[in-house]
């Protein structure tokens, strides 16, 4: 203020003009700022309301099915076989996926030096992560179902899901191994432990929270996958589905949902309304699984962290 006054004495009119201009510019800038932030807020509100309303809509639509006893039965309008298959395929896939991708992550973090091999592995992982799941489904069909002779079966499906989720699991496990401080490794090696013993007794226990979170996140992807299973695990169940036989074809919650509303619409022996109720129920249960897994991954990761760092 005092500056302005002193300048005003020297050249009152030109300065007044300049001051007015400056105020106008400031006003415009602040107006721009407010408009831009307003637009960003509107965008954020639209997108998050879209997401929230989708979740709420799915659960409300699915509620009638979720609270009926038939829904959990083995009838045409029940999902007991699909529930069983979904968890069966989840466990079978994780049996392959967890050790293999953890071993690959250990190699990349603990053993490999920077060089062409690491670059190639990372490039392959990134490329594989970008391959559409339907294309991987065809690959799984040609390799596991036809070439290895597993035909269209749970085993072929699980191996295809291994290929599909390998890159993501690798990235998650690499990140959790990387977060283990170097001092721990050096301390263990200095005590004369071999590298493998060091990894077993020091690195893996301290990376445990991250590994568990990674496991749960890949579980979510396995439960939600459908396109890769169309031609590797099929859309239909054999007569007796509740067995542990990995060589039978079977459907999952997602492929059943696709069949109900896609190619099988009208030929499932259900009325259109029953089909819709069933589909809404399956969609709701999938969303609930996903919510539980995501919140569970956060909660469990935090809990393990506290447990392990407190000890």
């Amino acid at each position, binding site marked *: 203020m005092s500056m302005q006054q002193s300048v005003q004495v020297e050249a009152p009119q030109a300065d007044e003009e300049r001051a007015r201009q400056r105020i106008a510019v400031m006003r415009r*800038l*602040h107006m*721009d*700022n407010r408009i*831009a*932030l307003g*637009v*960003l*807020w509107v*965008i*954020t509100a639209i*997108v*998050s309301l879209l*997401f929230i309303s*989708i979740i709420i809509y*799915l659960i409300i639509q699915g509620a009638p099915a979720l609270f009926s006893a038939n829904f959990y039965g083995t009838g045409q309008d029940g999902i007991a076989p699909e529930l069983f298959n979904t968890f069966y395929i989840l466990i079978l896939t994780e049996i392959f996926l967890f*050790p293999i991708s953890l*071993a*690959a992550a*250990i190699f*990349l973090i*603990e053993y490999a030096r920077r060089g062409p091999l690491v670059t190639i*592995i990372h490039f*392959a992982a990134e*490329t*594989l992560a*970008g*391959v*559409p799941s*339907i*294309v*991987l489904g*065809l*690959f799984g069909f*040609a*390799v596991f179902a036809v070439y290895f002779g597993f035909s269209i079966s749970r085993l072929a499906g699980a191996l295809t899901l291994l*290929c599909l989720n390998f*890159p993501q699991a690798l990235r998650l496990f690499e990140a959790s191994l990387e977060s283990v401080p170097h001092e721990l490794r050096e301390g263990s090696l200095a005590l004369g432990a071999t*590298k*493998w*013993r060091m990894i077993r007794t020091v690195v893996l226990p301290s990376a445990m929270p991250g590994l568990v979170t990674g496991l749960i*996140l890949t579980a*979510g*992807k396995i439960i*939600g996958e*459908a*396109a890769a299973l*169309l031609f590797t695990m099929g859309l239909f169940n054999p007569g007796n589905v509740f067995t542990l036989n990995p060589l039978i074809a079977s459907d999952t919650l*997602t*492929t059943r*949902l*696709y069949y109900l*509303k*896609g*190619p099988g619409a009208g030929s499932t022996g259900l009325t259109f309304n029953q089909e*819709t109720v069933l589909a809404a129920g399956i*969609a709701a249960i999938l*969303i609930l699984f*996903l919510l539980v897994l*995501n919140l569970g991954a956060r909660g469990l990761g935090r809990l393990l962290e506290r447990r392990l760092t407190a000890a």
Partner: protein
Amino acid sequence: MQRARVSDQVARIVFIVCAVLIVLIMVGVFYVIGSQAFTVFSATSPQAFFFGNFWDPTGAGDPSGNSNPSFGARGLIIGSVVITLLAVIIAAPLAIGLALLFTEAAPRWLTRILQPLIEIFTGIPSVVVGVLGLIILVPFLQKVSAPLTGNSAVGGFGWGAATIVLVVMILPTVISVSIDALRAVPTSVREASLALGSTTWQTMKNAVIPAAAPGLGTAVVLGMARAIGETLAVALVLGGSQAPSKIFAWQSLFGPNVNITQQIAQDFGETLGTARAAYWTLAFLLLIISFICICISRYITSRSVYR
């Protein structure tokens, strides 16, 4: 001591084998799909494949009744490209806008809500989104487009519904990659801009966005890769078996239509021989397109300053 060293060596070999396995899978995918991609050209010429309009590999729909197959994939390819581009054009500004607010100006309570919401939606099964589109979106679009399609009973299916479904599917991916890109910009860049007297918006526009531009580009390209390969969500709302004869018309948006992934999902299982070979060619095309997208995103990332 001896035993420890042996087990150390064994562990090391196991780890290397597992890490190399991912390279083998990748090479295997290209080999298996590539090796079957070209057999279709013994039955048809590449020109007829890429520029023909009638897709009927089994010959069941041959108008002359002779069951002569035709392999015109032009409609499918255009379908995939159009809905992918439309979806990216709609999703990119929304996603980047949300990511900007999230990293630069959001209050704590908002980030606490958004973070888990984005994570949950990243994993939403595509078939769930497709069924949702089929139940809500298609009837709605049918009503909206009634004057355009002449109140057709199958109106509402088509590129329009597929685009909206794709937007929902790729938004979370683009948002989370954009957020990572914006977070990688060091605070000092923002502080320098603010210290010069910039408003928040000036800081975003002139400092943060240029610094994060390669990362934001990667986000869009990855969204594109995801969109072109998206299958079941799109398959359920496209609802066609043949591209419409006038493909670049408004009716294409609101009438049954086709794309590459939908045709593979619907018909691959029911074909044999040369007809099946045509679907391998389509799959190889998808593989190449997504590979190009990944290469572009890698190139952009390699040129960015902040990672």
